[in-house]
Each structure stands twice: as structure tokens, then as C-alpha cells.
């Protein structure tokens, strides 16, 4: 199978190049023969455009046919047509047909350039629509599977039920054969870890931003800011590793000495490390908005006799508040959607508790544990993951939209 794929890619590329040069050659030949007859004839487009036109006509039919063949292949095509070779032959013949059709149209008056430019702009348009289609695909697949989930489990049980144990027994007579899908404990766990993370990230991020923009010398800024940004660039699995293998054991031993019962997978360890991870999200956005407050406000406050910290607390922060709030909201959405740290450090069992030293689970962890491994697509267990994903999607999207709204609505306009 891979060899045929490689061959067909190679053959189609060859075909395209041939088509292009064929078009160019024919255009030049036509031009020569016509200008030989009379000097009045002007060729509309450059040979290159004719070449591109032929190449496009070579590419589109074969591409369309190939996609159609690929989608029909598993179910609707007879055996002999479904073979790899048949696809290759179809691909090539469609390309050659397109080529011959297009090269016949080459003439002095033929406006190849216009056609090529239209095709070009269409390709650009389609590419920009890919992003829209992706969003559409995300929403449709989530909504579709969530609907299927809610046809098996009631909405109120999912949203308000306290008991989460998605295991469905293979036989009807096994214990806990029905599985229960009360997601409250999962939402509570997510909330707990996110709250811990934000308690770390907001003050530290905000103070870092204030120091960077108001106190730091330019020299300090040039090396400290990129270093701080590194925190955002480190893969989350690395944080997860650090949380699970360094922070969590350290906290357990420390708790043991103080006589506290700290489980080896605790909300605290995951929340702490996640908080550090999102510091740069808070700090760099806040830094930008604090910097955007005009200098006149600082000068005015200083002229009234305020110290620098008073200026910051009483003038700059209120002025920058909408931006700071939106940066905190964006960071929160990051924290809610973060997966690897909590998977590695927070635990898998649903546990309704407000004690940060116990293991809790989150939405992302549950999605992952429900779906990793073999799965059948009809069981409520797998569908539950999509329902949780839908909740996650709505939550993060809502936070982002809210963040944008706040910035747009409350932004101080200075001029």
C-alpha cells in the first residue's frame, strides 16, 4: 500500500511538470507561428500562465476523481475497481484527459492569466476555509456523539449526579453493570486544580509583569523576559513528569513529617506545577497591557507625590484592569484544558473533595482514560468522553469569548 501511494504521488508530480512545460512550449510555438503571419496579433498571456493553466487542468480532474475513488472504494466499488492499480490508472488517465483538453485552448486571444489568477484566489479561499471547516468538524463531532450519549444517559444525571464510575460490565450479572455518569465530582476536581493553579499563577504572574514593566532595567528585561517565556514553551509532559516524580513524592514526605495525610497523587502537586506553567500566560499579556497605559498617567501620579508602588496600585492597575482580567480568563481556559500534568500527577478516580492533598480527577483526565485503548463506539463509556469534551469545549470557548468581550468593552481609550 505505501509503495503505491509513493508511486502515485511521484507519477502525478511528473504529470504536472509535463503538463506545465507542454503548455509553455505550445504557447511559445503558437505565438511564433502567429507573429510570423502578422505583427498585429498580440498574445494575451505569458507562456508561463498557459503552462500553469494546463497544469491546473491536469491536476483538478485527477484530484477530484482520486478523492471520489478513495471515498467510494471501501463500500461501493466492485473488486477490480477497488484495487490500488485501478486507482493509479484512473488518476493518470484523468490527468492526461485534462491536459489534452486544456492544451487545445491555447491561443493568442485566450486569457490564461485570468483563469489562473481565479484558480489561485480560489485555492487561497479554500485554504482559509479549512480553519472554518475544522471548527465545524469539532462542533459537529462533539455534538453528534454527545447527543448519542444523552440518548442513553439523562442530561440531569450527567450534570448533577454525584457518582462517576463509567465501567460497564461485559456481562449483565456483574456488579455495577450499568455504570453511572454523574460528572459533578469531575467538574469539582477540575475546579479545584484550576483554582490552585490560578492562586499560584495570578499573583506571581501579575507581580512579574509589574516588575518587568515598571521596575526592571532594560538589561534585566532583555534576559528575564525570554527566560520566563521558556516556561510556556516546555512540553506539558515534562511538567507532568516533574510533578509526578519530584513534587508529589517531596510533598508526601513533607506531609508525612508534619503528620498530614497526603496521597501520592494530589491536586496540590498538579495544581502547583500547572500554576507555574501558566505564569507566562498571565505575565506576558499583563505586561503588554500595563505597558500600554500612557506615560502621562504615571507622570501625573508622580507629580501628585505618589510613590511608584502607589502609582501602580492606584493608577496603572485600575487602568489596565480589563486587560489583566482577560489575561487571567485566558490563562484559566488554558488550565482547564491542560491534560498531561493532571494525567500524570492528579489521579484517575473520581473523588468529590475540597481537600487539595487528596487525589482528584479532571475532565481532561477522564476523556483520556475513557478513550485510550480499544473502544467500541456505541458504549456510553466512550460516548461519555465526547460529552465531557463538549463541556470542555464550551467552557474554554466561553472563557475566550468573555475575555475578548471584556477587553473590547472596558478598554480605556486614550488619545
Amino acid at each position, binding site marked *: 500500500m505505501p509503495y503505491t501511494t509513493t508511486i502515485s504521488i511521484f507519477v502525478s508530480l511528473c504529470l504536472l511538470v509535463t503538463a506545465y512545460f507542454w503548455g509553455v512550449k505550445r504557447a511559445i510555438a503558437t505565438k511564433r507561428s502567429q507573429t510570423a503571419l502578422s505583427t498585429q496579433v498580440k498574445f494575451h498571456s505569458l507562456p508561463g500562465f498557459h503552462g500553469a493553466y494546463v497544469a491546473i487542468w491536469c491536476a483538478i480532474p485527477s484530484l477530484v476523481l482520486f478523492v471520489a475513488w478513495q471515498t467510494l472504494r471501501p463500500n461501493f466499488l466492485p473488486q477490480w475497481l477497488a484495487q490500488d492499480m485501478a486507482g493509479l490508472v484512473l488518476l493518470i488517465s484523468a490527468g492526461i484527459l485534462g491536459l489534452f483538453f486544456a492544451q487545445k485552448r491555447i491561443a493568442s486571444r485566450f486569457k490564461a492569466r485570468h483563469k489562473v489568477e481565479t484558480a489561485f484566489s480560489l485555492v*487561497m479561499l479554500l*485554504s*482559509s476555509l479549512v*480553519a472554518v471547516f475544522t471548527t465545524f468538524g469539532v462542533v459537529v*463531532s462533539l455534538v453528534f456523539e454527545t447527543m448519542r450519549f444523552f440518548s442513553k444517559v439523562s442530561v440531569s444525571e450527567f450534570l448533577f449526579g454525584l457518582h462517576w464510575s463509567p465501567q460497564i460490565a461485559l456481562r449483565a450479572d456483574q456488579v455495577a453493570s450499568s455504570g453511572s455518569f454523574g460528572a459533578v465530582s469531575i467538574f469539582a476536581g477540575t475546579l479545584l486544580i484550576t483554582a490552585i493553579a490560578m492562586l499560584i499563577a495570578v499573583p506571581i504572574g501579575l*507581580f512579574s509583569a509589574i516588575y518587568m514593566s515598571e521596575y526592571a532595567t532594560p538589561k534585566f528585561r532583555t534576559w528575564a523576559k525570554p527566560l520566563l517565556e521558556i516556561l510556556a514553551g516546555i512540553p506539558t509532559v515534562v511538567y507532568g513528569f516533574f510533578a509526578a516524580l519530584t513534587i508529589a513524592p517531596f510533598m508526601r514526605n513533607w506531609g508525612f513529617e508534619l503528620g498530614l495525610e497526603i496521597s501520592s497523587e494530589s491536586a496540590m502537586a498538579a495544581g502547583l506545577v500547572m500554576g507555574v506553567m501558566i505564569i507566562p500566560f498571565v505575565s506576558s499579556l499583563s505586561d503588554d497591557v500595563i505597558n500600554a497605559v500612557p506615560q502621562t498617567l504615571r507622570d501625573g501620579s508622580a507629580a501628585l507625590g505618589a510613590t511608584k508602588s502607589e502609582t501602580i496600585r492606584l493608577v496603572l492597575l485600575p487602568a489596565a484592569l480589563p486587560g489583566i482580567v482577560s489575561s487571567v480568563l485566558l490563562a484559566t*481556559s488554558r488550565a482547564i484544558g491542560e491534560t498531561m500534568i493532571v494525567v500524570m500527577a492528579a489521579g484517575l478516580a473520581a473523588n468529590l473533595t475540597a481537600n487539595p492533598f487528596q487525589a482528584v480527577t479532571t475532565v481532561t483526565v477522564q476523556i483520556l482514560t475513557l478513550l485510550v485503548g480499544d473502544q467500541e463506539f456505541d458504549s456510553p463509556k466512550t460516548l461519555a468522553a465526547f460529552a465531557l469534551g463538549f463541556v470542555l469545549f464550551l467552557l474554554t470557548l466561553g472563557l*475566550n469569548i468573555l475575555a475578548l468581550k471584556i477587553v473590547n468593552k472596558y478598554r480605556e481609550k486614550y488619545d
Partner: protein
Amino acid sequence: MIDKMSRHTKKRYQAERRFKIYGLLAIMFALGFLGLMLSTIALRAIPAFTQTYIQLTVEFSAKILDVDNKRDVKQIARADFQKIIREALYAEFPAANKRQDKKHLKKLVSSEAGYHLSRDLLAAETTDLNFIGTSAAIWVKSSDDVDSFIKDFISREVDEINRRLNDQQIGWIDSLIADGKLETRFNWDFFKFADSRSPEDAGIRGAVMGSLFTLAITLMLSFPLGVFAAIYLEEYAKPGRITDFIGVNINNLAAIPSIVFGLLGLALFLNIFGMSRSSPLVGGLVLSLMTLPTVIITTRAALKSVPPSIREAALGIGASKMQTILHHVLPLAMPGALTGAIIGMARALGETAPLLMIGMVAFIADIPTNINDPATVLPVQIYIWADSPERAFESKMSAAILVLLFFLIVMNGLAVLLRRKYERRW
């Protein structure tokens, strides 16, 4: 009165100093955490780069290797080379003649040692089979328990019951050390092998190749699509509701948690299109949808920074719109677009969660050779090892993180370099 005022001023100045110190402390905390994390990982990674080897005098007896005496390479390749190594061990320590002792003794060498020995000896088709019947001193890999002992992870002080090596085994190791038959070498196999159940044989080659294939797909899809989309939005689209809608859409796409892309990949690529699980192709598709917004947003910014005078000059001397864009605007915006692409790739390289959902988490002991082979990627490999109970995997994991971070540093460094070199102010 004045006294009261000066006291008040003093208080205010103290508050000022405190405030400043809080800021500095915040930055120091963040950077200190970064330093602590990286140094812990680096320290833990060190043991993974060495491996203990044991020297044994092996007798390639024809009785074991060439039972039917045909000297057939294929037949010999299937022979029990592990047994030869076991016999050599028994010969090394003749005192261990009880069944129980032998069982402990054979745990000193890697259970894969025989496989590697046969592969080394019979590498070529036309192998010289004269070694059969002779004996030679060879170095074989020790088991990971011995390796851990040499690296001081297993302490002599611990009670025998709670130790992975018993006193007898430690005695054998000591005598091997005394005879100079045990040495530690650089662990090249870590970079040559794919994943394995036995820690001494586990390497990152498979994961690195998987990452490479996945990133290749991601780059091939997201870079052209992203650049085209940016060109459309900046150069063609008339400002209006549809353009705004697409722009908002792209921004929202950038904010969707990565795990949701995993759900999309699972539902769309695996379930509807029926593509193969665990393949770099599907991984690349998912990651390219994820990096697309990054590429679009940075390329749009780069296109925006190209001054309109360039476009007007090109149009003024008769270039068409497409020629203006392809010949003049795009080349000037290319460094910016490439920077965006590299940053997007760096993020895709570190991404784990969506790839777990499409099954790249399977145990794969083969190095993938094309985009349809089951594969895993570096961050997922780290995650897989994190689940393994053996102590030795912990240092493997740290070493894999170092390799991952190395790639990330190279990519980000490249992006910075590109920006420095080609950044222009008009």
C-alpha cells in the same frame, strides 16, 4: 506634626520597597522553578547515558548452535544464543551449581543479550561461520538490576528481602569487578533502539523517527495551507462580516484545548475515514489542524508588515495581483511565515494528549519506516515510560526529555535567528 509626616513618609517608602521586592521575588520564583526543574531532570538523566557490560568467555559450541551440523546461517540465527551466554556464566562461577543459584546467576545478564549476540555475529548474508566450535571473550550487556546496582540505585544496606539483588548476586558482581570483567560504557543503544520491555534495551530511535514523520506531515499540510489562508485573508478578502467570521474562527481554534483536537481526530480520521490507528499520518493530520492557527496568525502579521508601497509599485509597473503577491509581497513576508511555522512545529513536537487519543500510545518495539507504520512520538514515549515500574526507566525518561528539549531549543533558536537576520523595519 512634621515628625508624624516623616514617619508616614518612611512607612510609604518601606511599602514601596516591599512592593518592589515582591515583584523581584515573583520573577525569581518562576525562574528558580525553571532552573530546579531542568537541573533535576538533567541530573536524573545522567545514568541513562551509560550501560554496564560484563565480560564472559563464551564457547560457541556446535552442540547448541548447530544441532544438525548443516552450517546453515538461517538455522543458526534461530539457535539459542542466550543459552551460550548462560553456559558461560555458569562456567565463570562453577560454585553456583544448585538450581536456585543458577536461576539467580542468569539474572546478571540482559535477557536480550543472546539476541544481540546472534545479530552481531550473523549480520551479513555471507557470514563466516568458523566461530562455531571456538571460544572467545565477549562483552555482553548486564541486566538492568546489575546496572542499577553499579549506579548506586540498589544499596547494600537495605535488607536482602527488599532488594532486587540478593547477597549472593552482589558477591558475584563484586568478584566480576575485582577481575576487571565488568565495565561501564556510553550507552549508544539508547539512540539506536526503539522501545523495549527491558530497560537496558530501551531506546528513543523509534520515537524520534515517529516524531520526524509526524512533524513532516504537519509541516507539509499546515505550512502551505496556513500561508495560503493568510494570503487570502490579508490580500484578497474584502473586510466584512465573512472575513471577520473567518478571523474570529481562527482565533477560537487557537484557543481550543489540544485534547479536543484528539477527539476530532478520533471521530473523523479514525472512525469515519477509517485511517490506521497509531500512524504518524493521522498524528500529523491532527497536529496540522492544531498548528494551522499559529501559522495563519503569524503569516498574517508578516504580510501586514510589508508596506503597501511595495504592492503599489508592483501593480504600477503592470504586475497582476497574483504576480504582486508571489513575486514581491510573499518573499518579503517569508521569514515571518517561516518563524511562525517553526514555532508551530516546536509546539506540535511537544504535544502529547491528542496523540494519545489516536492510539500513538501503543508499545511499539519497531522503528517506523513510513507514515503508515504504527509509531509513537518522543513526548508520548516519555509518558509511556512514566508508567513503567522499573527504576531504570526513570532515567531513560529524563534522558528522553533532554533530547526533546534539545530539539525544541534548536527549533526555537532557529526561529530567533531567522527573525534577527531578516527582520526589517520599513
